């Protein structure tokens, strides 16, 4: 049956049909929907782990125990999971293990555009890379087979435009669509300490084994149908893969292609033969010159991006980028440039993402701004506090970074008063050890846990504090306040961030505590609760001072120098603007609400 699936949904379906039984992940754009889709299938186990390192350890444990397992994360998640990535490469797995990494060229929702093909080379692991949803479906099963055959974890690399593009998948139906039955007997523990206990003596024995495994995989890469020659015009031979293949195929369909479905290790002979069959080799790849460097080392003269000659190192590829590069090399006529019609336009006000109306973070940011604090930020919706008019976040590096940064800055003798802010899901991810550090090393630091009761930015995923699992079972709701207290932190307060006075009092007290302090600002994400009645501005009282506009709520807008109004369709009645107004001009709309 043909259906239109996103790359993420196709990975989930392929994993299910292929017989993957255990999967673990931490949400992260563009990978999040993989586990959401997979979790809905019967007879499997799927979990949100608190972070990617734990997710990978869970998947490794399942594969050690003989299962087909999968760990899923965004590209920077693999940095967090890099430690287990390297040991599981050494030990290998008796079951099968697929590690999905979703890279984000163009940084649609990320802090960098690292190219995780480098991890395959770094950790001596094979990597497959689909270029559409059909391949996503097929390759996850190929990855499982490869994992079985070579007793190795296999990386499956996706990119944003594969994850979030919907393309046709011809999926099996009926009997064929059912995953293989689970083993009748539980798998016995494969007791083999020399293999699974990575003390130096054992690891030294394993290292040559994985180097040999890599040579065997390179030999396999020569013959697999994953790496496919599509003969065409001999003037130009394009070596490409992933989404870049689709772009190159779009703009120069008549060329000869070597389409790499296996990103690492590369098939040396196949590449050399292909190069010999064409006049000029061009390597077309998103992000790093990962293939180009290796192809050049094989003694193949090629064009690409190493010297910035055809394609850029920075930013996302598109058909236009590939077209421009191939035109520069003379394989296409120069693109016909239509006149730029935007030149005739007035300046267009930008529309960056913003904190939603009723967002519980807004009241906290108002207070932090009023107190003129330096704010060490973290990753989540609250990072949007960096946009004007709030402009309140001073750092954003990676998950869990802010608490440690604050501690270091304080110990260095920072002149200004400062706080760290971190979301609830991010706190469980990597905030906990950072807070342990603050408590242990007696940092008189204030950490604000902005607890909106969900993983919000990625689209509302459960986490250890919500009381529900990924598969919607009730579970323990782990309380960040109790965690902080268990660390010996005495000064722990919980406050409703929609109450500005109380929030300010709690933050002031935390700043003055002279010891490690935690303030938990706790209210559900505004998108997950019904709105309260909208507020209205009394035009008689409003003088247009604009104080309310400084909280950056999309529901408020200026109509003239002396009047501001509230859009009743957007207002959630959170009352933060009402509390900020110095003229008591904002009130419940009585006409509307009687």
């Amino acid at each position, binding site marked *: 049956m043909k259906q239109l699936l996103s790359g993420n949904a196709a990975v989930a379906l392929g994993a299910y049909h292929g017989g993957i039984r255990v999967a673990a992940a931490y949400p992260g754009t563009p990978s999040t929907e993989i586990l959401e889709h997979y979790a809905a299938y019967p007879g499997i186990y799927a979990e949100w782990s608190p972070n990617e390192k734990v997710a990978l350890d869970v998947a490794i444990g399942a594969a050690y125990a003989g299962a087909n397992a999968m760990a899923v994360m965004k590209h920077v998640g693999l940095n967090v999971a890099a430690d287990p990535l390297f040991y599981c490469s050494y030990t290998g797995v008796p079951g099968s293990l697929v590690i999905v990494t979703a890279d984000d060229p163009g940084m*649609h929702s990320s802090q960098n555009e690292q190219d995780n093909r480098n991890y395959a080379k770094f950790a001596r692991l094979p990597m497959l890379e689909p270029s559409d949803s059909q391949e996503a479906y097929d390759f996850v099963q190929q990855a499982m087979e490869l994992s079985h055959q070579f007793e190795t974890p296999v990386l499956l690399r996706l990119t*944003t435009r594969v994850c979030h593009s*919907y393309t*046709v998948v011809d999926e099996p139906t009926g009997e064929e669509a059912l995953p293989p039955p689970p083993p009748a007997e539980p798998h016995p523990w494969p007791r083999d300490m020399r293999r699974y206990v990575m003390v130096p003596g054992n690891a030294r024995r394993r290292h040559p084994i994985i180097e040999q495994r890599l040579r065997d995989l390179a030999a396999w890469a020569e013959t697999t149908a994953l790496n496919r020659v599509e003969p065409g015009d001999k003037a130009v031979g394009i070596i490409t893969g992933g989404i870049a293949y*689709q772009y190159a195929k779009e703009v120069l369909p008549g060329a000869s292609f070597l389409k790499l479905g296996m990103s690492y290790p590369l098939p040396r002979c196949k590449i050399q033969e292909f190069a010999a069959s064409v006049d000029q080799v061009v390597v077309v790849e998103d992000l790093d010159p990962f293939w180009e460097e290796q192809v050049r080392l094989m003694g193949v003269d090629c064009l690409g991006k190493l010297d910035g000659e055809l394609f850029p190192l920075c930013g996302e590829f598109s058909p*236009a980028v590939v*077209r421009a590069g191939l035109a520069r090399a003379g394989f296409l006529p120069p693109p016909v440039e*239509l006149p730029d019609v935007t030149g005739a336009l007035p300046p267009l006000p930008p529309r960056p993402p*913003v904190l939603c109306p009723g967002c519980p973070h807004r009241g906290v940011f108002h207070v932090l701004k009023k107190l003129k604090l330096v704010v060490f930020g973290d990753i989540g919706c609250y990072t949007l506090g960096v946009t004007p008019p709030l402009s309140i976040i001073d750092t954003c590096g990676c998950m869990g970074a802010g608490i440690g940064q604050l501690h270091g800055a304080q110990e260095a003798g920072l002149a200004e008063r400062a706080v760290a802010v971190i979301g609830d899901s991010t706190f469980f991810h990597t905030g906990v050890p950072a807070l342990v550090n603050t408590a242990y090393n007696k940092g008189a630091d204030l950490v604000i846990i902005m607890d909106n009761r969900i993983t919000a930015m990625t689209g509302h995923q459960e986490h250890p504090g919500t009381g529900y699992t990924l598969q919607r079972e009730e579970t323990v709701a782990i309380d960040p306040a109790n965690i902080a207290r268990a660390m010996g932190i005495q000064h722990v307060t919980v406050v409703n961030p929609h109450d500005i006075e109380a929030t300010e009092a709690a933050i002031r007290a935390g700043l003055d505590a002279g010891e490690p302090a935690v303030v938990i600002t706790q209210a559900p994400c505004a998108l997950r609760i019904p709105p309260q009645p909208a507020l209205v501005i009394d035009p008689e009282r409003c003088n247009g001072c604009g104080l309310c506009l400084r909280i*950056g709520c999309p529901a408020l807008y200026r109509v003239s120098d002396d009047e501001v109004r509230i859009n009743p369709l957007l207002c959630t009645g959170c009352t933060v603007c009402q509390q900020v107004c110095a003229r008591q001009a904002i009130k419940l709309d009585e006409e509307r609400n009687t």
Partner: protein
Amino acid sequence: MNKIDFLVVGVGGQGTILASDVLALTGLALGHDVKKSEVHGMSQRGGSVESHVRWGDKVHSPLAEVGTVDYVISFEVLETARWANYVRPDGTVVINDQRIHPLAVSVGEAEYPSDDALLEAFHARTDKVHLLPCLAVAQELGNPRVTNIVLLGALSKLMDTEPDPWLQVIEERVPERFVKLNKQAFARGRDLVQ
């Protein structure tokens, strides 16, 4: 048919994703190869959003290129202008007559340009620019959330296609209790185009 490219643009939260889903599935129902690309995550929090939908005999890239889009379907007047360079010469632009102020405009730091200023730019490319009261029609029907389907109704007429394949997809795609409302919205959208 070689290919038809669509670009669906608007503001996060306006229902662009459902519209591009329906558009893609209708293409599939009509027997085309189809690809659709959209971006999730940060851009959904009230920011500019765009989806590419491509129909063709064989579609490779999920992204359309500047200057080649056959139909720009816009949910918001200002957002239309941001993508002006994507429309092909003599292409069609269909716009929901709604203005959502970006924060910079709300706080009085920037101005929302006039319709004339925003839409005039297109005339260098095409005269087929349709500014239609889709939101007003949806509100008349009692639910502003069907604005997207009103807009698709208008598009289906501009494309000179029959309503049936669209309605079938809509029926499969929206919750049962909203099917009748959405069908009405689609029909009213077709009526907006002469």
